[in-house]
């Protein structure tokens, strides 16, 4: 809190020496470790969740590779489809947004008060569940994907350029999905139910983020929507980069869009957080 | 002589509980080999309950009360022994049997949450095949007895705990069961509501002649409703009889409360005062002493105290029932005789 009270000369408050710094890395790290220790206990539960999220990309992988057969669909071979979707599974899991239940539910249940009372920026809580979750999910998804790769024989040719650009786009995709999901979850400060918005968000991600098909294969109106809207840049874009489906021009245009949407997402997050917390404290949670 | 409704003979229930030690190695080991432990929840209990009787089951948490109730209501299979309720074997779960019994749980609800209670009652009426005329009659009677008229229009989720409990009672009684199992029905209720529910249960028992088993941690419930109690501890039946006899049999001691005159020059609390053997000082503070003494020795000790201490006031009391129960719960090696009195 800003504006500390000054103790009278000659005396000091007992806890004055143990002031938590604004950033409080130690606190944050402790929280991450403890959350992870808790979640790893329930890994069976989380593995089942990851299993469920893997199925739609797998379905489309099978469907497209059957459609390609021995030939291609729009220049993409069976093996390339398999590679695309296996990478998609990994990227999707890595960027998946849990904010609705790690933040949204916390606000709805009133537990946000506990977070706000601690000398720790609340974003640490979200980050700790994020780290915990991703580690546990990937512990399941990576081996399974590896096995599938052995069985299904993907074709992946990565050019140096694509390989170098992939990592930044992946990190930005994670950040974009994280902050986008976060500000949406923060709407819980105002509305008690998130069903409608969640359903809409899921549908748009499903259609435009590369699950139904690689962006290039979408029909025109959908392809334009996908290029302009943020959803492709949360999942599909890095995958397209790595699979070499993009020309230089397309790659840099996409990169620009991704950066722009990331900036928008962060701005929205900061704005919604500030207004939301003020309202939350005023209304009394 | 009233008809026997509940007959229990040598009933036992043992659970197999998996054992698991903490740590990574243990969890890996548990994948291959499971170690289990046998827990005897109920050991060889027998009793008979007759028509119209309301019996209290008391005992500490984990004593086996709820397990026994669940066996009698058919929810659990016993490991050994037999039971007959209304002539049926409970765990065969015949619909005719289930039609005639009812269980009300204090901490769980069977009401549908978002609709007024009457709607749940009608569904239950259908499930229990209560004819519409009879259902209306029973509901009217119960609602009047419980003073619930204003509650009928609200959805259940807006009810207070006490109001919800009233609904649970109606839900449990609308099919006019012959045997009623009540598991902590007054849990969490405020004092006045508890009193009201007790009066209702007593009145209902009187009017309908239903045989009932009540478990409760509030001794006031048991004292008010159950002329007969059964004490279960560590799965064993320790006592079956009148409540007043419980103290006499299991904790045959009395309490002598002494108030000392001030300025008695004895250290203010009777220090240095010698007591006969077998007398316990339970409390001493501010010039007041509480002594625990064997029932038989009470008169003698009283005389001794009056002679040797500067007594301002003295009273000889039966121990409060809670203290008796408390003592029993704490005592691992209960033999039904005077505790050795070495203090806790």
């Amino acid at each position, binding site marked *: 809190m800003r504006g500390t009270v000054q103790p009278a000369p000659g005396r000091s408050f007992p806890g004055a020496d143990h002031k938590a710094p604004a950033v409080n890395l130690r606190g944050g790290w402790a929280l991450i470790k403890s959350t992870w220790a808790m979640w790893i206990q329930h890994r069976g539960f989380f593995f089942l969740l990851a299993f469920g999220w893997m199925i739609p990309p797998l379905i489309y992988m*099978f469907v497209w590779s059957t459609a390609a057969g021995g030939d291609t669909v729009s220049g993409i071979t069976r093996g390339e489809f398999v590679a695309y979707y296996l990478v998609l599974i990994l990227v999707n899991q890595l960027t998946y947004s849990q904010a609705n239940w790690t933040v949204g539910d916390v606000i709805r249940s009133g537990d946000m008060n506990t977070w706000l009372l601690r000398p720790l920026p609340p974003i640490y809580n979200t980050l700790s569940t994020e780290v915990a979750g991703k580690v546990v999910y990937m512990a399941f998804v990576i081996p399974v994907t590896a096995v599938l790769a052995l069985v299904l024989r993907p074709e992946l040719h990565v050019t140096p350029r694509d390989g170098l650009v992939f990592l930044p786009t992946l990190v930005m995709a994670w950040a974009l999905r994280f902050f986008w999901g976060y500000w949406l979850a923060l709407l819980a400060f105002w509305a008690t139910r998130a069903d*409608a918005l969640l359903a809409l968000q899921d549908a748009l991600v499903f*259609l435009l983020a590369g699950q139904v098909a690689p962006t290039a294969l979408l029909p025109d109106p959908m392809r334009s929507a996908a290029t302009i809207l943020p959803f492709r840049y949360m999942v599909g874009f890095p995958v397209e980069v790595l699979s070499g489906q993009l020309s230089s021009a397309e790659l840099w245009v996409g990169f620009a869009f991704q950066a722009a949407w990331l900036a928008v997402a962060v701005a929205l997050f900061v704005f919604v957080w500030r207004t939301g917390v003020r309202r939350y404290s005023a209304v009394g949670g | 002589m009233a008809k026997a409704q509940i007959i229990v003979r040598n009933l036992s229930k043992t659970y197999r509980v998996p054992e698991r030690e903490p740590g990574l190695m243990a969890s890996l080991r548990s994948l291959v080999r499971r170690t289990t432990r046998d827990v005897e929840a109920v050991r060889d209990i027998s009793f008979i309950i007759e028509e119209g009787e309301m019996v209290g089951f008391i005992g500490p948490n984990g004593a086996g009360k709820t397990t026994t109730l669940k066996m009698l*209501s058919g929810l659990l299979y016993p490991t050994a022994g037999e039971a007959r309720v209304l002539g049926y074997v409970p765990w065969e779960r015949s619909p005719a049997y289930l039609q005639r019994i*009812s269980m009300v749980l204090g901490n*769980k609800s069977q009401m549908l949450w978002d609709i007024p209670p009457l709607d749940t009652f009608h569904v239950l009426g259908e499930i229990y095949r209560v004819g519409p005329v009879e259902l209306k009659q029973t509901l009217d009677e119960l609602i009047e007895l419980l003073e619930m008229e204003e509650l009928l229009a609200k959805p259940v989720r807006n009810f207070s705990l006490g109001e919800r409990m009233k609904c649970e009672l109606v839900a449990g009684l609308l099919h006019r069961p012959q045997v009623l199992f009540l598991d902590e029905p007054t849990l969490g209720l405020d004092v006045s509501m508890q009193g009201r529910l007790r009066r209702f249960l007593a009145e209902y028992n009187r009017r309908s002649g239903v045989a009932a088993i009540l478990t409760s941690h509030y001794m006031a419930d048991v004292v008010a409703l159950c002329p007969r109690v059964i004490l279960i501890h560590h799965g064993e039946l320790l006592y079956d009889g009148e409540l007043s006899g419980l103290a006499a049999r299991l904790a045959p001691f009395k309490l002598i409360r002494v108030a000392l005159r001030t300025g008695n020059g004895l250290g203010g609390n009777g220090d240095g005062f010698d007591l006969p053997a077998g007398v316990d000082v339970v409390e001493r503070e501010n010039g007041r002493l509480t002594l625990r003494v064997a029932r038989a020795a009470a008169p003698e000790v009283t005389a001794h105290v009056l002679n040797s201490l500067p007594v301002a006031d003295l009273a000889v009391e039966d121990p409060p029932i809670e203290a008796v129960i408390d003592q029993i719960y704490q005592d691992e090696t209960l033999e039904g005789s005077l505790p050795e009195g070495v203090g806790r």
Partner: protein
Amino acid sequence: MAYLRLIRRFAVASTQNELAYRANFWISLLHSALNLGTGVLGVAVLFGQVEMVRGWDFPAALALLGVYLILGALRELFIGPSLESLAGMDGEIWTGTFDFTLLHPVDVQFLASFRYWRPLALIDLALGLGVLGTATVQLGHTLTLERVAAFLIALGAAVTILYAILLAFSALVLWSPGFLFTWVFNGLFQMARYPVALYPGWLRLVLTWVVPVGMMTTVPAQALAGELTLPMLMGSVGLAAALFAGASSLFRLGLRRYASASS
């Protein structure tokens, strides 16, 4: 019949429970619309790139999607909500109120299957029928009485298989209370969106006989197109009966186990 009266009572009570929240209606509509939209677009995108895959063209795949939506709607109508109230995440087995259900003088499997209804699923049913109807018209098939009969039988078998699989999963919760049975089932059910022919050979076998999602949608769709052989129809009916018997036995076994283990 007492059981029919009971079902009517349950349906009425569930409807009242649903209508208690007005927002439910609009959100439900949105879900139905999104479900329809994503389903149709998913198929459309595929067939925007190719004319035909393994003998299935766009209208045929759309017809299959229609069956899928119908099946999903029937599941949401009563099978899903009832079993979920028992074995789902906040279900009775998890919270401990299952004892009340066990105490009722009505068969537990009956209660677990018919207890809760979600009448808004009728909207999804209508949408599914719409999709199926549109596709059938586009396919230009003649709807003979024989084909319609075959379709209805196949659909009946499909619903029975759906019920049996969900029941079996619910039974598993009696052994392992944390098991996310709806979640796992949803994943597998998704595979029924597309004709089994679109999956590779080994997966096709699995999806026809082991986890018979193929039976659930492909067979009825083929029946309507007049492509279903009699042995296949009989096979699906037989499979449905066998799965029903198996799932019911598993459920009863689970109940017995629950009654000897819970404290």
